[in-house]
């Protein structure tokens, strides 16, 4: 054997030696799920509502109480330069020819809440045991509990890097974080994947639901900021806010393990202090019945969204105008938007754990909404297409299934609430995160720019009827420069007698129809 060959053999042995251990499939699956969850939460930090709006192609915004479309639809498509609802011609303020600009950059009146610095100054709490090496710093309280074979650590901790304006270490309360970890010490469990039926181009096919896998000794830990239910706004001026954080772990046979972290926030001149921290693990009855709701339960006193910023009130009024303009009766509504992607058209299906798909840099998106006599959304079908290629893909939103193109791996939405308040909700979210809203008025139109730390959305509305004319999304560079990412113009929004047969056929496949 030559020296060269012998060195090759040695390298091969070294390779064998160092690549022998493999992470268990259960571990990699669980960590993957955790990463997706964390990624989703990061996304939530800067634009929860925006993405909700995105995913909810079919989650129209029809409101219950009043036979009126909920904000969404209105905003949504409302605009239409459609033939049927041809609005007065308005030049987009994004054009150079825009007239009579009148910038009114409103001051932010909302001051994000913070932890009283003194609350952290004297804290000395023993570190949690069995927490792995990802231990938090100064603990404000918490504990370790059992839920089935899981040992769960839940602790509140002080960390100045967690802040409302941070997109990566976001926390609604500056300086406050939540440490979460579990350690599984039960038997190894490998449940088989289950199957369900979905429809592709009207034909049924089988979709696999991932299996549950648990390996004894598996443990996970993460540190997150403080984040309340995004559909509520805590009343931070209240003297006391009761809080409950629900930590859940999907287990075998549909069981949900977890624990509840309860505490009180007491308001003081320099911020909040934390009191009466209690952790309780789910007992057997709770494990059998619990759902997988994760995060803060909305038990705290809440405030009216428009109290956060004066321009939010204006957005709300615009939405109401739009709703009144659009909704006439039960039946079908069609929205067509024209999309132009300026950046790379890669992205992920929200709530799904797989990247990534290029549809097109320029395409149309049709959504047919079916609404009942009370203005409530019954379901929707979404179709994207390029004029040159005809059919692109269709999505049935009633049961949140996505029907992919032939040859493309399927994906699915998880069923989410049919609720979106469009610009108003996105504005609320932005302000909650310490972002800003600015306004510019033009002849017949008004433009709002909603900015968070890393992203901005610019929406143009018809001043008279509140119709959304155009939405542009930007990323904000470190230099502060705004880079256009995508633009969507509403081409049509109208009530239609009935959708085309292929759309109707797909809609009728939805369970319950």
């Amino acid at each position, binding site marked *: 054997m030559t020296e060269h060959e012998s060195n090759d053999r040695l390298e091969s*042995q070294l390779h064998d030696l160092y690549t022998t251990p*493999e992470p268990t499939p259960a571990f990699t699956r669980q960590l993957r799920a955790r990463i997706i969850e964390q990624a989703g939460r990061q996304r939530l930090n800067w634009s929860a509502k925006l993405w909700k709006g*995105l995913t909810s192609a079919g989650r129209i915004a029809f409101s219950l109480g009043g036979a009126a479309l909920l904000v969404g639809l209105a905003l949504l498509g409302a605009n239409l330069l459609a033939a049927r609802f041809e609005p007065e011609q308005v030049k987009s303020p994004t054009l150079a020819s825009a007239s009579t600009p009148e910038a009114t950059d409103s001051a932010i009146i909302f001051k994000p809440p913070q932890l009283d610095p003194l609350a952290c100054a004297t804290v000395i709490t023993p570190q949690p045991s069995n927490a792995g090496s990802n231990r938090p710093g100064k603990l404000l309280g918490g504990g370790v509990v059992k839920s089935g074979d899981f040992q769960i650590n839940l602790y509140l901790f002080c960390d100045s890097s967690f802040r409302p304006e941070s997109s990566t270490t976001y926390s609604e309360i500056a300086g406050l974080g939540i440490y979460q970890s579990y350690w599984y010490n039960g038997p190894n469990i490998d449940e088989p994947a289950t199957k369900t039926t979905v429809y592709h181009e009207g034909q049924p096919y089988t979709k696999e639901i991932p299996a549950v896998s648990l390996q004894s000794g598996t443990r996970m830990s993460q540190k997150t900021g403080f984040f309340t239910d995004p559909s509520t706004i805590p009343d931070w001026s209240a003297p006391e806010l009761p809080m409950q954080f629900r930590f859940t772990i999907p287990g075998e046979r549909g069981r949900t393990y977890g624990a509840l972290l309860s505490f009180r926030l007491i308001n003081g001149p320099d911020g909040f202090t934390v009191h009466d921290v209690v952790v309780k693990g789910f007992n057997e009855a709770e494990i059998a019945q619990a759902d997988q709701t994760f995060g803060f339960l909305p038990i705290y006193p809440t405030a009216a969204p428009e109290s956060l910023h004066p321009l939010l009130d204006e957005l709300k009024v615009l939405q109401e105008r739009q709703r009144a303009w659009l909704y006439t009766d039960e039946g079908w509504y069609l929205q067509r938007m024209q999309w132009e992607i300026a950046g790379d058209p890669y992205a992920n299906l929200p709530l799904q754990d797989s*990247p990534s798909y290029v549809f097109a840099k320029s395409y149309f998106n049709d*959504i047919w909404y079916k609404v009942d006599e009370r203005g409530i959304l019954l379901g929707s079908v979404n179709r994207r297409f390029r004029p040159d290629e005809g059919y692109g893909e269709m999505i049935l939103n009633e049961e949140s299934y996505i029907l992919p193109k032939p040859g493309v791996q399927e994906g699915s939405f998880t069923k989410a609430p049919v609720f979106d308040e469009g610009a108003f909700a996105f504005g609320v979210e932005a302000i909650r995160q310490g972002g800003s809203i600015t306004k510019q008025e033009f002849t017949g139109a008004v433009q709002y720019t909603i900015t968070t730390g890393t992203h901005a959305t610019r929406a143009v509305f018809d001043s008279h009827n509140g119709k959304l004319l155009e939405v542009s999304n930007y990323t904000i560079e470190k230099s502060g420069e705004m880079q256009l990412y995508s633009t969507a113009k509403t081409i049509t929004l109208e009530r239609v007698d009935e959708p085309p047969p292929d759309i109707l056929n797909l809609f009728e496949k939805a369970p319950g129809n």
Partner: protein
Amino acid sequence: MPLFPLITTALLYTSDAVDLTDEKLVEQALKASTAFAALYDRHVKSIYRYLYSKVSSHAEAEDLTSQVFLAALESLHRYPRGVGFRAWLFGIARRKAADFYRKRKLQTPLDDASEVASPGDSLLVQVAHGQSLQALAQLITRLSEDEQELLRLRFGGELSFTEIGNLLGMKESAVKMRLYRLIERIHKAMEAGND
């Protein structure tokens, strides 16, 4: 409703991700952070192996692996272009492993003690099967920490010479030379052992 749709209403997974470079996937993940999963899929095994070879405990390697990827996700916007994603990721892994040893020196809860292998308990010796691999593993334990690290990065992490250079702040040629000499030395030591 797509009131403020960001991109489009439904984006599906295709095999496209398989062909994309790490840099491209990072770009995607910066726009839609769930795209980070593709980077995770691509590198989780090598990160785990590397950490396992450092800490000699499955549980700690798993815990550190989760920390590495969660930290990478959180700080992805600070990823320095041009360094190479793998080199950057292994940099995080090295820091996490260093933190692990630092914290373990400061505090080792009793409950955790059984999870951590004793210092003399070499992973390589544990996993080596066959006489020649056993001998090789024993030999490696006598190398300096820097030399062992070089082997871990090259053979456990499967990093290129350029990536190792970026990570350790060395020129590619220097990494190549150092590794070549190291393998030569091991080779000679193995031969001497066989004689």
